[in-house]
């Protein structure tokens, strides 16, 4: 799995170094079906790709609406990769795994 990952992320991102911690933030609005799907997909992808070195923070804008402006959130659900920099944003319910990997720089953009 790791080897595979190394091969795939060649020249893109090193995931397997100890210091690399991925900080991911998922913005949702309540317990909507899209939000639930997105969270489920995110967890699955992270566990497959990130070797346990990640944190996922789910922000419900219905509870904390003021947080939406900080990350320029418009669409929901939005996944923001805070670390490693640069910040990336992925919108949608993350059901297209390949696009998610591209968005997270885990796959080179075709």
């Amino acid at each position, binding site marked *: 799995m790791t080897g595979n990952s190394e091969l795939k992320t060649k020249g893109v991102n090193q995931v397997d170094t100890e210091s690399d911690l991925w900080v991911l933030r998922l*913005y949702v*609005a309540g317990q909507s079906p*899209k939000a639930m*799907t*997105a969270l489920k*997909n995110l967890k699955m992808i992270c566990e497959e790709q990130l070797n346990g070195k990640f944190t996922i923070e789910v922000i419900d*804008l*219905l509870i904390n*609406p*003021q947080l*939406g*402006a900080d990350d*320029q*959130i*418009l*669409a*929901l*659900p*939005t996944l923001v990769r805070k670390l490693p920099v640069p*910040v*990336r*944003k*992925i*919108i*949608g*319910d*993350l*059901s*297209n795994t390949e*696009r*998610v990997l*591209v*968005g997270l720089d885990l796959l080179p953009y075709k």
Partner: protein
Amino acid sequence: MDNDFIKALPKSLTGIDGFDEITLGGLPKGRPTLVCGAAGCGKTLFGIEFLVRGVTQFDEPGVFMSFEETKEELVTNVASLGFDLQDLIDKKKIALDHVHIERSEIEETGEYDLEGLFIRLGYAIDSIGAKRVVLDTIESLFSGLPNQLILRAELRRLFRWLKNKGVTAIITGERGDDTLTRQGLEEYVSDCVIFLDHRVNEQTSTRRLRIVKYRGTVHGTNEYPFLIDESGFSVLPVTSLGLNHIVSNERIPSGIPALDKMLEGKGYYRGSTVLVSGTAGVGKTSIAAHFAEAACKRGERVLYFCFEESPNQLIRNMLSIGIDLETLQQKNLLKFQATRPTFYGLEMHLAVTHKAVKAFKPDIVIFDPINTFAISDKEMEVKTMFMRIVDFLKANQITALFTSLTSNKSILENSAVGLSSLIDTHILLRDIELNGELNRGMYVLKSRGMANSNQIREFILTGEGVELREVYIGAKGVLTGSARIAQEANENADLLNHEKEIERKKRELDRKRKIIETQIAALHAEFGAEESEAILMIEIEQDKLRRLKQDKIEMAKSRNVITDNRTVNNRRGIL
């Protein structure tokens, strides 16, 4: 909601100068309005001013959601228009949210909606209790988000949501090729659509505003010129003026006593429109300056628009005929507003005039001269503009004096911009060329509501100002200048001759009377002589008769008494 249609549509005053008048009360309350137009036409400013005026004049907080400019940029941009946006943000009267969307940062991975935008907007509205919302320019989303289907569906939902929130919203949109907005936003916002236009015509630009539609209410449908300057937006509701001005019977002197005399001895009516037209160098400006000076001396305020001379040049020139405008200017009774007619478009001039008049509050406005506007073939537009100015000034009871240059070739009565029908008092100055001299003549072509003089006066510029003299009008035509003087001398000589002739005739008569009188005396004497001679003759004859009778009686006595009867009969027969 349905009841709203039965009642009058509630409106929300914008506070934008003039806009509330053409919309008869502002934007539809609790509904979104689309403001569209090309780049640089003032959409953002319209939105900002709507919010700022909302806070400062109507105590309605507002949210500005910018999709293009950042908060800092906006604050700086509108500071030049006199709006302290930062202060209002600090006071929690205005919430400013910059929505930034970068296509390259975004990866689309499935189903999504724009709930995030709704939540941010909702949060901003709730945090300050906003009644007004501006979304500027929401179409930027189309370049940021790839999925147009979702976007369109969400926009539709957004406008519905705004209505439900009950906020009065302005959505700005960039003009498209054939459509009002590039992305067809007018489909979604259908209550009120306002179109802003920034047109360049013959190198001069004019901003215009038009209400494309306004559901459920009447509104002005024209294109209204508007102005963006240091005090923000101002729309000119000019054509909303009618012909129902208040009319004053007050008369104000023209500053030239002889001219007043031609106008029933009282001068112009207050609030009337005076046109002084004439050929080049005939003294139009001098008449205007006299009027200004007289008004200022009465303590009235005069606004002087000069379109040809700079104020300093005008002051110098008028000093040469003894009018000191500079002192009046220093006393702030007289204000010059000098611009070239070509400096901006007609509507802009109109707008500038409105603003200047509203700011200075003059009693008298002078436009010197107006025909420079009619350089191009825009005569109709020029006329419309002046009609608007005249209406505006009349409505404010301001007396206006226009000067107009007429060309030598054209019919004199035809002023350059075909204004005559708008004018109450038309004073015509004309050159009279005679015997190698160019003199000036002046007459009152018309003056509504007064018995004006029909006489031509010779118009003379002296070191003490304008003087009017009566011109010679006779069989030889109108004579002025030295010809008039010569003619007057001739007439004087004639008069003298006539007087002498009369004298001579009188003497003749006297002489004749004397002759006849002597003749009468002679005849009397002759008659007297004849009379006394005749009387003598009569006495001699009577004596003879008496003697004859005496002789007969004595003869009878001497014959006898018998023949007495016969004698008597004979005497009777003789008698």
